């Protein structure tokens, strides 16, 4: 296998883009990534695009071809492939691009992610997202996504006695970081009482425990490490790529509040990179709901099971803490255009490793990690990236 590096990154502002289409957004992200890598489109060998549900959100399938076409690649007939794994679509698209380059099959590959969620009414988007769980045996009986994660939270609080305030600190911290990220959907800080007084969605989760509905696109370009300096002075090496699966339905898990797919993907990634959690300077985890961040940092090994509430409350996951988590603002504050999220996580870590993260910069950042979840943990993609 060849070593692989990220040589270019681009991302749209995340938010509710009523005046912008699916096509506008991915073209912008792709152009930004090409510009960043000082590349012209003729150098691109292949594209992978993460997208969960364009069929439901904009009634458009065949996204690979659409993206190749509107990026001006169709006349060159490059292979363009859509990758779908619900909210982990972006993470898997990145992994496919890395594998394509590592294998020697392709040289310069774009990994993108895009989702246009606000062209349908909220009821329709909630219903589309329910397709990330088991439609026949969860969605049919009345499970919503907040409802499923709420059941994880109930189980977790029952077992480990985390306080409601500790859980709320996840959102407070992520909004603090989002306020320092120019692409974030929500760039406002919030307080504990903002979370505690927000509308109840599914007990014990309130509105500010939930990531929003978002439009956005992100793109990164990968190349063989030994060619990376042709394009950039600061190539970021992909130290590990890992993926794992678990039961589609939450009720079939070994333990409701442990994501075994996160544990498996995390262990595989650390093994591949020959690193441990102590080597990681910052991590982007999949906080689609506050409880998901709590489980993720435990399941990746950053703190012991049952202690993430206190760990968060003590500031260990904040900028300047023991392990800064979601410096981008996470899904909660940066926003969650589902197919784009996994690529945006890579975008954030690359910015950190290059020292370009502005007010949220982690000093001396050398190694970072991304963790992208599909559904309630049925697919997990984990990547480790490092400065060369």
């Amino acid at each position, binding site marked *: 296998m060849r070593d692989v590096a990220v040589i270019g990154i681009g991302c749209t502002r995340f938010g509710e883009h009523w005046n912008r289409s699916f096509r506008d957004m991915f073209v912008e992200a792709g152009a930004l990534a090409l510009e960043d890598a000082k590349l012209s489109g003729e150098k691109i060998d292949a594209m992978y695009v993460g997208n969960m549900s364009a069929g439901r959100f904009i009634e458009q399938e065949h996204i690979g071809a659409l993206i190749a076409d509107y990026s001006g690649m169709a006349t060159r007939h490059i292979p363009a492939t859509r990758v779908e794994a619900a909210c982990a679509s972006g993470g898997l698209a990145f992994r496919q691009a890395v594998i394509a380059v590592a294998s020697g099959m392709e040289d310069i590959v774009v990994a993108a992610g895009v989702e246009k969620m606000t062209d349908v009414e909220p009821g329709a988007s909630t219903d589309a997202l329910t397709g990330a769980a088991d439609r026949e045996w969860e*969605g049919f*009986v*009345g499970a*919503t996504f907040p409802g499923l994660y709420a059941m994880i939270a109930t189980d977790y609080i*029952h077992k480990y006695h985390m306080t409601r305030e500790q859980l709320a600190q996840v959102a407070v911290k992520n909004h603090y970081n989002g306020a320092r990220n120019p692409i974030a959907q929500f760039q406002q800080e919030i307080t504990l009482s903002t979370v505690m007084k927000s*509308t109840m*969605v*599914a007990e014990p989760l309130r509105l500010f425990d939930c990531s929003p509905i978002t439009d956005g696109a992100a793109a990164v370009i990968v190349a063989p490490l030994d060619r990376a300096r042709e394009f950039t002075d600061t190539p970021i090496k992909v130290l590990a790529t890992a993926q794992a699966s678990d039961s589609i339905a939450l*009720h*079939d898990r070994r333990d409701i509040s442990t994501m075994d797919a996160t544990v498996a993907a995390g262990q595989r990634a650390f093994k591949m990179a020959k690193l441990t959690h102590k080597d990681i300077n910052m991590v982007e985890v999949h906080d689609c709901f506050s409880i998901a961040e709590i489980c993720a940092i435990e399941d990746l090994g950053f703190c012991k099971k049952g202690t993430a509430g206190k760990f968060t409350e003590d500031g260990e996951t904040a900028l300047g803490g023991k392990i800064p988590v979601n410096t981008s603002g996470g899904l909660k504050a940066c926003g969650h255009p589902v197919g784009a999220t996994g690529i945006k996580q890579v975008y954030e870590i690359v910015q950190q490793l290059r020292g370009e993260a502005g007010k949220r910069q982690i000093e001396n950042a050398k190694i970072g990690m991304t963790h992208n979840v599909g559904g309630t943990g049925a697919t997990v993609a984990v990547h480790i990236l490092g400065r060369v």
Partner: protein
Amino acid sequence: MTVARFWRKIPQRYNLIGTKCTTCGRHFFPPRTFCPDCRRNGKIVDHQFAGFGTIVTYTVIQTEPDHFASPGPYVLAIIKLDEGPQMTTQIICDPKEAKIGMRVRSVFRKIGTDGESGIIHYGTKFVPVE
């Protein structure tokens, strides 16, 4: 959910008929036609579940999805059936009453409708055991 898609699972949804692997004895609800433990050596047959279980975890849904029969907040739970498997279901009870470890039994109820003039979906919900 289309009529055919709903109709072919009527025995399972109405009567809590799942499956069982006669090779290892493991029960499945929701039903599976392939045993993950015995794989191709497994022999799967239908199994009528007794309809009793225990709440493993739950939530109270305050913002219900479209077309559901439940007016207002409802209790959604994962329950462990006495035969072993876990399933997701609604619990018909006062939301304040629901708790982990509560014993429940199955009942036949309306789940929702497919739009205002669409077919009515029935299925299994659970109620607290008196």
